[in-house]
Structures are given as structure tokens and as C-alpha cells.
């Protein structure tokens, strides 16, 4: 924690973690079994835009500061600029060859270190992430950061009900399998948010112009000075053994083509269903 205590500063300090991801519908595998990423358009992970919107909305209500944070190649600055255009105040890019190939454990280590560093200047109250990325789909990095920094872990958040800077608490609704859990967490907290938490605003033109010129601060291994054995490909406990295209299921009997009358097609289908019924052990 920094020198200033929260009693002295009336400001909510929020970090938004985002990720630049390939448009997953266009990713393919080469004949050599490697991922073809070249020429594939990138986007800000859709869930993360909702995280940014949540952070900026909180700032508008409570006052404060929003900093967007990402790790990736220098090209990921474009993703940060998109969040600046939405209304974030600052943006940090963590970029270093030494971090390439990090799995979720190494990634949460690096991001947590960067957040801790930002917290030295101004204590962090909230870290907000998207529920998961659309490329990895793991939902592991957010909770990993929360654990490393001792933040209250609040995942699957679909609504922020109340933030109480004086009591240092936040009340959120979590979307679970069978209902909604209302939970209070002490600050600092880490939220991962569902897409239905909000509608992402359109960036106003002056913001867009500002964002185009915005130069994010770059953190690298020189200034973060992280444990070499815990970063990048070598510092990642999980290894990719192989990637492959999902095997096509060999099925596909067309029992009724377009030339058949609906009543005949229906009869053919119901025949099959009836046969299943006779054979079915579940009946």
C-alpha cells in the first residue's frame, strides 16, 4: 500500500484488465499443426469491454481513476486505445519477449506484479476483468490475480449493487447455475463480469481522437524485474502437447430431401423416433 491512506484520498482507483484476442471464428490450423494467426483480425475480448464499461460507470458515480492494463505484443496498444476512447484515464501495456508463451499461472503472476506496482502510487480499490477470454476460455487469470494480491474474489458479476468507499465494501450479484447470489466483499476486490452487466457505450468523437494519439506506458522485464523461473514459456507449468481440428463426426444420413412433402418427411422422422422408443432402455 502507498503512503496515502484511503481516509485522505476521496478517489476510487480501478484497474481494468483486458486482452487482445483473435477473432476466434477465423482461427485455423496449418498442415504442420500450428495455429495460423497471421492476417487474423484482432478485437478487444468482448467480455473485457463490459469490464471497462463497469469501471468507467463506477468512476462517473463515485469519482476516481480508471487504468486499463493488458499484456501482449506492442500491437496490443490498439486494444488499450479502445478502452481509453470509452473513458479510461490511463493505460499500461506489459510487453516483453520474456513474457511470451505465459500460461494462466505465469500471466496472473505478471499482471499481479504490475497491479502491485501501480498500487504503490495509489492504492488499488478494484480490479475488474471480463468473465473469460474468447480465445482461451479459461476464466483462470482473474481469480489468480485475486489470490496473489489478497483481493476479495467476486466472479460472474452481473450487477454492482453498491460500492461503499467509507465502509470499504462492495455488494454485487453473481450469476450462478441455479440463481443469483448477492454477496458483499471487502475492498480491495477483484470482479469478473458477465456480458449482461451493462451495455457498452459508443465512444464519443473527442475521446476517439484523444485515444488515437494516446501512448500507453510500457512495463517490461527491465522495470518489473520478475522471477525468471515464473514467466514466459519456461515459467509456465502447462505445456501444449498438440493442437488439432475437432474431428468431424461421421454421421449424416439425409432421410428426407427438399423434394419430399412435409407430411412425408415428418412420417419418416417419426418412424425413426418410434424405432428409438422401442430400443430405448430409458423408455
Amino acid at each position: 500500500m502507498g503512503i496515502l491512506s484511503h481516509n485522505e484520498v476521496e478517489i476510487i482507483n480501478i484497474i481494468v484488465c483486458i486482452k487482445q484476442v483473435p477473432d476466434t471464428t477465423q482461427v485455423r490450423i496449418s498442415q504442420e499443426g500450428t495455429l495460423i494467426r497471421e492476417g487474423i483480425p484482432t478485437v478487444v475480448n468482448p467480455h473485457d469491454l463490459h469490464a471497462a464499461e463497469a469501471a468507467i460507470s463506477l468512476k462517473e458515480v463515485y469519482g476516481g481513476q480508471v487504468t486499463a492494463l493488458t499484456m501482449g505484443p506492442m500491437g496490443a496498444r490498439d486494444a488499450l486505445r479502445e478502452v481509453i476512447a470509452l473513458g479510461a484515464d490511463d493505460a499500461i501495456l506489459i510487453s516483453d519477449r520474456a513474457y511470451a508463451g505465459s500460461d494462466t499461472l505465469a500471466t496472473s503472476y505478471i499482471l499481479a506484479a504490475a497491479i502491485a506496482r501501480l498500487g504503490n502510487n495509489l492504492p488499488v480499490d478494484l480490479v475488474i476483468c471480463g468473465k473469460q477470454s474468447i480465445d482461451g476460455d479459461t476464466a483462470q487469470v482473474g481469480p489468480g490475480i485475486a489470490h496473489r494480491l489478497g483481493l476479495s474474489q467476486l466472479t460472474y458479476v452481473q450487477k454492482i449493487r453498491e460500492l461503499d468507499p467509507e465502509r470499504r465494501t462492495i455488494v454485487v450479484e453473481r450469476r450462478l447455475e441455479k440463481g443469483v447470489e448477492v454477496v458483499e466483499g471487502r475492498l480491495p476486490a477483484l470482479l469478473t463480469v458477465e456480458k449482461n452487466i451493462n451495455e457498452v457505450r459508443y465512444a464519443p468523437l473527442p475521446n476517439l481522437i484523444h485515444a488515437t494519439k494516446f501512448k500507453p506506458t510500457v512495463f517490461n522485464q527491465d522495470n518489473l524485474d520478475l522471477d525468471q523461473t515464473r514467466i514466459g514459456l519456461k515459467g509456465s507449468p502447462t505445456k501444449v502437447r498438440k493442437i488439432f481440428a475437432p474431428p468431424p463426426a461421421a454421421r449424416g444420413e439425409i432421410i428426407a430431401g427438399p423434394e419430399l412433402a412435409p407430411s412425408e418427411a415428418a412420417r419418416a422422422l417419426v418412424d425413426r423416433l418410434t424405432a428409438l422408443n422401442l430400443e430405448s432402455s430409458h423408455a
Partner: protein
Amino acid sequence: MPKTANKDIPAQAVWVFIEQEQGVIHSVSWELLGVAATLAVELGASVVAVIIGHDVSRLTPEIFSYGAEAVLVVDDPILEHYRAHPYSTALSTLIRKYDPSIFLLGATTIGRDLASPVATEIGTGLTADCTQLEIEPKSGLLRQTRPAFGGNIMATIICPDHRPQMATVRPRVLAIPAVRPGLTGPIVHETIEFGAEQSPTKILDFIADANADQAHIEQAEVLVCVGRGLGSADNLPLLQELASLLGGQIGGSRPVIEKGWLPASCQVGQTGKTVRPTVYIAAGISGAIQHVVGMKESDTIIAINSDPEAPIFAIADYGVVGDLLEIVPAMVEELKQRQIRPLSAPVIGGRQHDH
């Protein structure tokens, strides 16, 4: 703490997290015990089930009946409702003490919330949302296969140098093993020190979904799933009639949920639920990979689509090329004429795969 402090819990075992809420065990726990048994046989290891909560000791006979060889229990009022911090503290403590080789959890909202802080605390690898687990012949490593990039790509992940090899496993992809009542084994109770701040979070309320008591689509034996081809929510009653004639339920692909035609709890696919009903009827669904990953394990797949090139036909057992708005009413008519008895009554609770 010395490792393997108890002879009943051997080191290098295959562990399964038994997920329970209010004393009801999530069926993915049984699926995990099934695959754990297969892995353990190949490794010559034993299967240990871990259950944590409050007043959960009474659940151990059921856990043994699905194939656990030993059960580790942490029973504490702090653990009455699931919360990430105390639950992960308990699991990390147990892992440090007993040194398992493999640790499996369900890729449920609880399992995914819990696995990451545990893996982070232990400093080991974690693979999310696996759909296939197997032991690599020579190395003895756990091969963890999962969809990535929205299901367009499958990746096989290993964790060579860290233990346990941790994975969350997608529910309803693996089969539930046969129940063998009467099996038993050692039960080891552990007490955990939770420290001064037992949890940084406090549950204030739980608002159950209005339809939470109804059968869920994951439990349906017959699932009629509609896609964009439905055209309008006004056509839903047609599909509902077909589903009820077949004793089934209704689900939808992502566009249908996004248009608000059906609630999110009915969504099948990568960002929705995984189902494996006896009969899956895809009506007006093109069969995008993101949808297919959520239903391809269904026993019999029937596709109705007006586009003969729709990818859904490649995975369907029986395909009908035609407009669902014509085919489905004709099916309803045909079923009524034959007065077919339902394939099955809607079930509530778990189902068993014994084939």
C-alpha cells in the same frame, strides 16, 4: 507438514473434488469419479474423493458407491456455503499434506471459481474445461484435451513438472459410472485453520431462478433445440408442443437467446450448456462449431434445416431438408395420430449412463 501423514490417503493419488450445495452433490462429481477410476488403474494409483462443507459426512456412502476408494472430509460451519477463500484454503492445505498426482474438479461455476486460486496457491498447472482425459502411455502424464478458440480448435495440454496436474472437466461430457451400493473405504477427517480473516466475502442473499425447480435442459432425455430458423418467438409454441409430445424440453442456440426468445438457462453450446440427451432435435440450427461442442455427445441427433449445406447435417444421424415451420407441425400431427407414448417422462435430478 510431513507428507502422507495418513496411510489411508496414499501420495500420488487421483483426487476428485466432490461438489455439493446444501448437501446435494453435483452430478459432475460422479462423472469425475468415473474417469478418475480409469486413470488410476493405468497409473496403479488410488482414487480419493474430497468433500468439504458443513454437515457433509453423511454423504460418504454415496461417494463410495460411485467408486471412490477413500474420502477426505473437511466439515466446518465456515464451509456451509461455497466461498472461494475458505474453500481454496482448505483444498490447498490438503494438497500440501497428501501430495496428489492428479486433481479434478467440475468446470461448473463453483469448480472454475475454486480451481484457479488453488492452483495459484500451490503453483501448479491448471487446464480449464477439459472434454477428454487420458494417461500418456510412456510418460504417465495426464493428457488434458479441451476446446479453445470457441471450439474451432482442440488443444491437448500436459503439466510435466508440477503436481498435482489440475483440470476442470466440462459437465455432461463424460459418462456417469454404474453405482455399486455397499462399497466403502477409509474416511479421513481433517481440520483446517482458516486464520483471522476467514473470508473477505459474505453471502447476503440467494435468489433462486424461477424455473430452478423445473427440470433443466441438461437433464432432458429429449431436447428440441431451436435456432435462428425459428424466425420469430411467435413460433415457439409449435416447438413446445413437439417437445411435450416427446416428453422432452426445449432449448435454443445462441442467436435465439440473444434475441430474447428463450431464457439464458436454455442455451446450448460453447457459451451455454453442454447436453447429452437420448434424442436431440436441432430445428433451424445451422450447426456452428460453437453450438456443436455443446450437443455432439447426444445419443441420436436429428436435424431439420432448409439449407442442405448446413453443417448440422454432417453430425446428424437423421437429417430432413425443409422448413421447420412446415416439418414440425407435420411431425406434431403425425405423433398425435400415432398417439406415441412419450420416450420418457421429464426427469428431475441426475441421470445415469450405463451404456
